[in-house]
């Protein structure tokens, strides 16, 4: 249920603001406005040319490590619950601290560090 509310809120806000912008915002289009912005000069060269494949490579690598960072957020929130272990000793629940949460993330990061080392050695990150 709370996830549903969160999603509803998110969608609600985005739709509200875009609707407001569309309704209230004044519109004045002129031919110059639709041209691409090139620091104030006449746009030259066509964007249709063949791009170097390196752009795609660097983008994909960024995606991998970006998602890795994204996974850390939920982990950070749940860190407290992950590392507290409640064991029941003769009827009394004792909460101790375990390193489960930390090790779990270490493993996750270690895998990606191996990937990073491989990519670094293959010089896929740099441009030359």
């Amino acid at each position, binding site marked *: 249920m709370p996830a549903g509310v969160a999603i509803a809120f998110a969608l609600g806000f985005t739709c509200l603001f875009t609707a407001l912008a569309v309704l209230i915002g004044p519109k004045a289009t002129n031919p110059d406005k639709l041209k691409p912005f090139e620091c104030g*000069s006449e746009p030259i060269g066509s964007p249709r*040319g063949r791009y170097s494949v390196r752009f795609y490579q660097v983008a994909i690598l960024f995606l991998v490590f970006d998602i890795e960072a994204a996974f850390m957020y939920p982990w950070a929130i749940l860190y407290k619950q992950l590392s507290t272990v409640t064991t029941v000793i003769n009827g009394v629940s004792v909460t101790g601290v375990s390193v489960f949460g930390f090790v779990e993330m270490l493993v996750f990061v270690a895998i990606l560090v191996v990937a990073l080392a491989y990519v670094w050695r293959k010089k896929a990150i740099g441009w030359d």
Partner: protein
Amino acid sequence: MPDQSTLKQLVLGRKDVQDLSDEEHALPPDLMTVNMGPSHPAMHGTVRIVLTVDGEKIVKGDVQPGYLHRCFEKESEHATYTQVFPYTDRLNYVSPMINNCGWAMAVEKVLGIYGKVPKRAEYIRVIVSEMSRMTDHLTCIGASAMELGAFTAFLYFLKAREWLYELLETVSGARLTHSYVRVGGVSKDLPAGFDASLTNCLERIDGVIAEVEGLLNNNKIFYDRMSGIGAMTKADAIASGCVGPIARACGVDYDVRRDYPYSVYPELEFDVPVGTSGDCLDRYLVRVEELKQCIRILRQCLKQIPAGPIMIDDHRVALPPKTDAYNTIESMIRHFKHIMDGIRVPAGEAYAFVEGGNGELGFFIVADGTGRPYKAYCRSPSFVHLSTSEQLIKGHLIADVVPIFGMINMIGGECDK
């Protein structure tokens, strides 16, 4: 514009499609032309570069200055010698006082009173130009650090620059466009309590420089973005007329204040930092070292400044004192004639140069005996350094254009005159 295939072979040695061997039959991507236009934060707003890029690597850059051409020469031909001072402020508006001193020395050279300016005035000129040189280096390093992402260094240096602006404002009345120096001396004496506030300000700036050096000197990101970028060999630097911090970074041991000593620089000792590899990092280190030298010079000047007149007492050049001008008719006429017609400079041509913020800033004046210069050419270091930028950015990535332009310290007003 040479067609794309020759460009590719010319620089990158890539083979054309026909003679590609089978296994490397991947189609080479087209060269893209990109605009790094006039209104771009890294271009200080006044330079347009048409970049021909292969992916991210720059194959050819056509640098086009001239977007801030405000006709310094044409305006100064229509103004008297003293009226040209406000125009010289706006040449290198990051260190305006040095331009003033340069113009004043050029006119004194044509007049023939080159060394006869009173000692105190010379000392005041050195003090205010060294303060102006400090604001130049502070702004240059701060702005290029900010362009590389080090926003804190920018704010620290801006704080230090504010202190200097306030001090320069107490001296000349304006924060930036001072028009303080006059032919034959300076317009006003230093305000009371100036020494104390200057020494206090210098200590604080020492602290700020130490802070920013701690931030930037061994900062991995800053080091990687700066070292090896835009390197220039010593021979190239000399042949392309580079001077100032950029030439010193390449190892050219040339500083106008020491090699062609003018004003009271022979009585001050300071050393000239010289770099080795000539890349952006060396330019940064040379500028930081020069900041410290400026502080050292200022401290010596404060100790050695003599009392005395601040204006040469040659009636052809100096204005009559205000008390005479209001009481006696002759002085009033002389005052009026001096202001309206300007200083009568005998016909002749002379070239005088000073060590500006970016290097040798010279003024070539042709005088024709009237009160207005017949020709006033300004030799601007930024224009010369910008002409080397086409070679410097070749082969680098697009992102490297930013530190190169930051460290060339191309000031629009001085570059486009």
